[in-house]
């Protein structure tokens, strides 16, 4: 705690004033502490966005974190308000909420009437320009006039007027430094942000830029010196600080109270529901089950958490009543109460999961239950249910703070510095989408690689400023599914504001801030695969007459596991990635728990901790099952001595180092939170000390610590893995037994998953599913099943608007299309849309597109009708043709030649991104065979170590952050996939062809071990004979 400081900075804006200040709240708090401040007010624009982070850091320094906001008045003027007490804080939140309600995102307008209704507990600081008479009435005894000194002649002239005004109105003056950056060096970035905000550049910004660098935090001595002629103005900062004792410790948040029927208590109702549910779930209820349930209920009662569980149960109950799939994820699956309530689908007792991972007395905080829902409209329905239930001011989504990343920082700063558009584009493309950053992949390297010279002054500035800008808030978005709610009014706890999406309201804090402030959040997350499952079930019912009950699928289905063991898992939840498919043949899952392990095993934790290969080796019997210490055997036995799950690590900490459940959970949280590196180091010391006390020293201790530290990035909870494994099994089962419905649902819910639709449909075809192309006489907007085949939907016609597609379907349902012109007229499709439909063959079955003389399939497949359709559509929309719009010029005939197969494939890829025709590689197979290039399906027949060449279209490119710079490519030909691994050195020399070619021939040494086949590639060439292909999925 600092000594006495005779100045308090009352106006400091953080970067959470979005483009108006350049320091993070933490940096302001740190600098204030360095200067010896006792108190400081963070005053962001029109809200309290940065307040939690400022509060958290200030608390560490023993700094009194005052709360306030700089408000935009309805006449455009500004008024700073500071919070005196909890009532004042509530009023501030309500004023800000009211000022933003019903307005476009980003706009605020505080009315004086609303301020008058909510003035209690607030101190107002005015610049004297706006509505002073009225403000004097609203804030009697709590209104000050602000004066600042920044070595600005014009400002000094205004100050004289302000001083005179203060004397005339008998209002006290208060000095501030209107801080925009913690230290003077932050001024350049502040100028850059001003240019971004005003959409200009440094050369043209003129007086929009800072006149000087004086708006930084100054010492009390400096401020005293500046205002030596007005000492009262400085003294008043102390007076105000004394009056404003409120901090965010006194938030006054309370969780909603659940309306229990029949006048019972929340706990009694919860107990009733749990027992009722347990009777359904556990047959029979064993003593162990009963004891666990009672233990959990006891803790829930002790911690007074019954209301939370009831609220989550209520949402799940709503979903069940509406027939919406829902499943709790995460640590909630460790709880038998959650299982009994139907919130989760995994039996924690049967799976021996760790309840303390979910809830413990030592944690002193609310539990965290996330619900997975089908993505799209169904999830939105649930969100709106919650809004309706708790009221527009009773709940909201959490915010998601979008920060500057390298690409966005470089683009914005480049524009501000006056780099050309070409230079900026080149640099942005160079900063690739791949996660891995080589040591020499610095921004400086990327600048020079883009043709910019580091000797250029502006380029040097770009480098410097980009480094400062990284991580700064850019704007506030909406978290995808986090909702917070409170007893009474949420807008008295944190200001609410409209989200960009209609019908959504967002709090001004993100989920970490909410957690730090003790605000309960429930995540309602949309999972694409749940939407697929939800869509597939009715398709199976309608087209196969089979009723699927996802909760009661046949366990351990041989066909399903056979498919998984072969890594035939394209499109399947969680196990379709390249890394997963490389593991499955080694893992050979045979039962449900194997899937639980499989889901967890390909994660940064096990990979960084070098745990993957030992587990697989031990499973294959090639390595002995050992334990770092005998005490760990019961914990690690079922994963063959290899720690894979967070619960295992927690139990290890408890058993090996004597941690309590709560301490072990704190260790896990420190591992998972990005802000807790210092805490992690402190916990490591405690861990080692505890292990030493238990006689675990040396290599054993190091091995245990390595395993724990590897989870610093992201380790999976076993409960979460188990919940996901249920979805894995369900999706695999559907794929194995009902592929048409599965792929149809998958295509209708894309984008999702790992693969492009082009790959999904070739995979479907390999499973024997027939595919039918887009046809305006048959296709819906979405894909459908037609006589067991998948009819591709209109949504996949590139550039076709959904409104147009739906109108087309409606028009067709009224009566069949008579001609191409009829399609255009009744659907409202533009000439460009009609051209696309024609080129992809979607008009082939329409009236005059058909060549009556060529009704046989061979002629149709020869593409005669595509060209005719193109010929017809080209005449549409031309001025002067309307008179003859409905008349086809039959005398003209069909002057264009048929499309060749290659041309049809090219048109398919360009017009839909996929083809229902043959794979493009099959067209050049004779050429490839002549060159000795092997098919993907044949690679598995060749011995390990063979020199091979194979070819295919590129479907996936990856450069994962944990792979030490190795680059992975997946190719596809007409027979399946081939995988290639490229060393960092070869990637550096062949980067262009590897990252841009649509199809490749690769050559190298075959690796064929344990059923996993890949090519360690050392030479590559673009396969230029391929006309077009689907875009690859490039990511990490």
């Amino acid at each position, binding site marked *: 705690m600092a000594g006495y400081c005779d100045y308090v900075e009352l106006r400091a804006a953080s970067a959470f004033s979005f483009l108006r200040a350049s320091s993070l709240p933490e940096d302001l708090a740190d600098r204030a502490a360095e200067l010896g401040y006792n108190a400081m007010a963070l005053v962001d624009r029109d809200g309290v966005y940065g307040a939690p982070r400022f509060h958290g850091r200030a608390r560490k320094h023993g700094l009194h974190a005052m709360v306030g906001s700089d408000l935009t008045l309805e006449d455009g003027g500004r008024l700073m308000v500071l919070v005196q007490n909890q009532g004042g804080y509530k009023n501030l939140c309500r004023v800000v909420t009211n000022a933003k309600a019903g307005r476009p995102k980003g706009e605020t307008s505080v009315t004086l009437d609303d301020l008058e209704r909510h003035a209690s507990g607030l101190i107002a600081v005015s610049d004297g320009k706006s509505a002073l008479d009225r403000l004097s009435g609203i804030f009697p005894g709590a209104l000050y006039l602000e004066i600042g000194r920044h070595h600005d*002649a014009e400002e000094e002239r205004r100050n004289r007027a302000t001083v005179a005004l203060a004397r005339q109105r008998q209002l006290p003056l208060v000095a501030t430094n209107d801080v925009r950056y913690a230290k003077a060096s932050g001024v*350049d970035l502040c100028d850059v942000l001003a240019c971004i905000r005003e959409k200009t550049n440094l050369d043209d910004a003129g*007086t929009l830029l800072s006149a*000087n660098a004086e708006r930084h935090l100054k010492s009390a001595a400096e401020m005293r010196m500046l205002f030596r002629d007005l000492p009262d103005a400085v003294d008043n900062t102390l007076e105000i600080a004394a009056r404003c004792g409120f901090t965010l410790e006194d938030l006054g948040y309370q969780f909603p109270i659940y309306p229990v029927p029949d006048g019972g208590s929340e706990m009694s109702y919860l107990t009733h529901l749990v027992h009722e549910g347990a009777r359904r779930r556990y047959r029979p209820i064993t003593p162990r089950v009963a004891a666990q349930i009672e233990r959990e209920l006891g803790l829930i009662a002790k911690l007074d958490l019954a209301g939370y569980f009831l609220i989550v149960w209520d949402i799940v109950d709503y979903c069940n009543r509406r027939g919406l799939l829902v499943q709790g994820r995460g640590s909630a699956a460790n709880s038998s109460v959650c299982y009994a309530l139907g919130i989760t689908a995994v039996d924690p007792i049967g799976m021996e999961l760790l309840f303390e991972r979910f809830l413990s007395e030592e944690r002193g905080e609310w539990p965290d239950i996330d619900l997975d829902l089908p993505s799209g409209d169904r999830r939105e329905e649930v969100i709106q249910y919650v809004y309706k239930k708790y009221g527009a001011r009773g709940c909201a989504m959490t915010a998601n703070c979008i920060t500057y990343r390298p690409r966005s920082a470089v683009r914005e700063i480049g524009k501000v*510095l006056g780099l050309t558009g070409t230079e900026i584009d080149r640099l942005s493309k160079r900063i690739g989408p791949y996660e891995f950053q080589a040591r020499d992949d610095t921004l400086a390297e990327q600048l020079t690689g883009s043709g910019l010279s580091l000797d250029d002054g502006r380029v040097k500035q770009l480098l410097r400023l980009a480094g400062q800008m990284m991580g700064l808030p850019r704007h506030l978005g909406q978290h995808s599914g986090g909702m917070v709610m409170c007893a009474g009014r949420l807008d008295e706890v944190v200001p609410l504001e409209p989200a960009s999406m209609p019908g959504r309201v967002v709090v001004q804090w993100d989920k970490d801030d909410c957690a730090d402030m003790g605000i309960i959040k429930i995540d309602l997350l949309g999972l694409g695969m749940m939407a697929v499952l939800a869509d597939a079930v009715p398709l199976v019912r309608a087209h196969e007459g089979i009723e699927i009950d996802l909760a009661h699928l046949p366990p351990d289905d041989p066909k399903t596991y056979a498919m998984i063991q072969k890594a035939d898992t394209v499109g399947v939840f969680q196990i379709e990635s390249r890394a997963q498919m490389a593991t499955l043949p080694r893992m050979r899952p045979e039962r449900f728990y194997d899937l639980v392990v499989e889901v967890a095993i390909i994660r940064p934790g096990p990979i960084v901790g070098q745990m993957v290969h030992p587990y697989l080796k031990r499973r294959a019997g090639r390595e002995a099952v050992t334990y770092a210490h005998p005490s760990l055997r019961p914990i690690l036995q079922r994963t063959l001595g290899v720690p894979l799950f967070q619960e295992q690590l927690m139990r290890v900490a408890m058993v090996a180092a004597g941690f309590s459940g709560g301490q072990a959970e704190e260790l896990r949280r420190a591992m998972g939170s990005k802000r807790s590196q210092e805490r992690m180091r402190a916990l490591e010391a405690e861990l080692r000390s505890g292990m030493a006390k238990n006689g675990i020293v040396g290599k054993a201790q190091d091995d245990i610590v390595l395993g724990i530290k590897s989870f610093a990035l992201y380790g999976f909870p076993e409960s979460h893995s188990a919940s996901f494994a249920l979805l894995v099994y369900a999706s695999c089962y559907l794929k194995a037994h009902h592929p048409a419905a599965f792929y149809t649902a998958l295509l209708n819910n894309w984008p999702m998953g790992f693969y492009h639709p082009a790959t999904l449909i070739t995979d479907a075809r390999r499973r024997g599913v027939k595919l039918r192309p887009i046809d305006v006489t048959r296709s819906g907007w979405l894909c459908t099943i037609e006589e067991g085949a998948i009819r591709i939907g209109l949504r996949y016609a590139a550039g076709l608007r959904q409104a147009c597609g739906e109108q087309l379907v409606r028009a067709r349902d009224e009566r069949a299309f008579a001609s191409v012109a009829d399609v255009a007229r009744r659907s409202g499709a533009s000439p460009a849309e009609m051209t696309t439909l024609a080129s992809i063959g979607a008009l082939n079955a329409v009236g005059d597109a058909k060549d009556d003389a060529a009704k046989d399939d061979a002629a149709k497949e020869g593409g005669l009708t595509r060209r005719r359709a*193109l010929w017809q559509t080209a005449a549409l929309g031309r001025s002067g*043709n309307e008179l003859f719009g409905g008349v086809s010029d039959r005398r003209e005939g069909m002057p264009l030649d048929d499309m060749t197969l290659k041309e049809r494939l090219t048109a398919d890829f360009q017009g839909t991104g996929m083809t229902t025709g043959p794979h493009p590689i099959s067209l050049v197979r004779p050429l490839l065979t002549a060159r000795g290039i092997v098919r993907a399906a044949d690679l598995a027949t060749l011995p390990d170590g063979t020199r091979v060449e194979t070819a295919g279209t590129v479907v996936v490119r990856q450069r994962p952050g944990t792979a030490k710079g190795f680059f992975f490519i997946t190719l596809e030909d007409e027979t399946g996939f081939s995988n290639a691994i490229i060393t960092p050195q070869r990637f550096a020399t062949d980067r262009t062809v590897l990252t841009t070619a649509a199809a490749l021939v690769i050559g190298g040494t075959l690796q064929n071990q344990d059923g996993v086949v890949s090519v360690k590639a050392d030479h590559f060439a673009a396969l230029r004979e391929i006309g077009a292909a689907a875009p690859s999925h490039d990511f990490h």
Partner: protein
Amino acid sequence: MLVPHLDVQSLERGDPELAGAPLVVCEGRDVIDLSPAARKLGLRPGMTIFQARSAAPEAVYRARSPELIRSAEGALVDLGQSFSPRVEQSAGAICVDVSDLGRLFDDEAQIANALFVGARKLGLAVRVGIAADKTTARVAARAGEVVVVPPGREPPFLAPLPVELLEPSPETLETFRRWGVHTIGELEALPAGGVAVRLGAEGALLARVARGQADSPLTPCAEPLVFEEAIDFDWPVENVEPLLFVLRRMLDNLVARLACRALASGDLGITMKLSPRGRDVRTVPVAAPTRDVATLLSLVRLALETSPPANAVEGLVVRTAPARTRSAQLSFFEPAGPSPDKLASTIARLAALVGETRVGAPVMLDRHLPDAFTMQPFNAPRVKLTADSSQLTVAGDARALALHSLRPPVQADARLDRGELRYLAGQGIGGQVLAAAGPFRVRDGWWQLPVTRDYYDVHLSDGAIYRVFHDLHGDSWHIDGCYE
């Protein structure tokens, strides 16, 4: 005649030593064209100069030269005109009407070869196409080095050629690709009406060309007008005055010739043949075209007096760039402003005295630096008549405390005591500081040429109030101006 890689060829023509070298033509920061030798080094258009230099430092880098390009094109026009008076110049191509050359050449192949060889002698490698119409000839030139299309044989000639040679717009080319039309013959096979309906006027034209029915007329370029007077002296003239005497007569003649065509004189090009050898070539800029000989002569006088020829002058050539006179519409109710001629002359004389960038109208810049300004071209202000016509006022006249700026600011010695300015002196100004306001701190241009100054208003013991500043980068003091 088409000139492939005109940017490269024009530079090679201007500097024959560049022939065969790996030449990289640049514009701005980018590479726009390359010689074959440069392409072999792996360089490509679209790279930045920095990338190209990093990849191939041994290549030769030159900026694109519009002057050399014009010169090359001019040379080809001259070549064309040596064959026929009807020559059309368009972007990258020269079209010559060779229809009446039957008496000079046996056949068109001879003409084509003669043009090809003639261009070579001018230092240019061209492609020559001869056909019945301009458009087909252009296609032929794009199809090969020397191509002659016999009359009536256009369709079979064009048929196998790629449709890109017709230079369709990108949208039309995309439509051809979708239709599977890859050659001109395939386009020709389509019904003309159907193509016209679908592709509009462009389609109709392309269809006609494909049929050999293009009929685009040649638009010959007009001969440039040259207004030049020349004289050789019997003996060298050493002084400027006699030169001006002669120049006056020459200007009279030029102006009279210009007047015949209702033209005026723009910039003057003066070439003085010096004794015993050498030339003095200079351009005298004329701000506004004029036929006023006195104005022209005064500009020439200024130029010669400011910078007299190094030696005696044996001969003079004066050439003028003809231009149209500017007219100014006067209003009934406003007095006429200064004559544009006289104004231009005055500005030119001032520019000659003080430098071009120092004559004009100062405009304050929107910057924090108190004296940031730039110069814009001077236009005579509109003078408004008020109701009392005896008083003419200029809009924006407002009384204020004025700062008499010292340009440049006067460097001063400053003495401080505990951070307070006490004494200041420099170049005849100085005294004890009786009172001071400031510092008023200003920073500017941190991203390129940083300036950081503390300004003060100081009342000195000499009775005057000055604005001074402390340059924080150079740690120097300056007196910026005096308040009046």
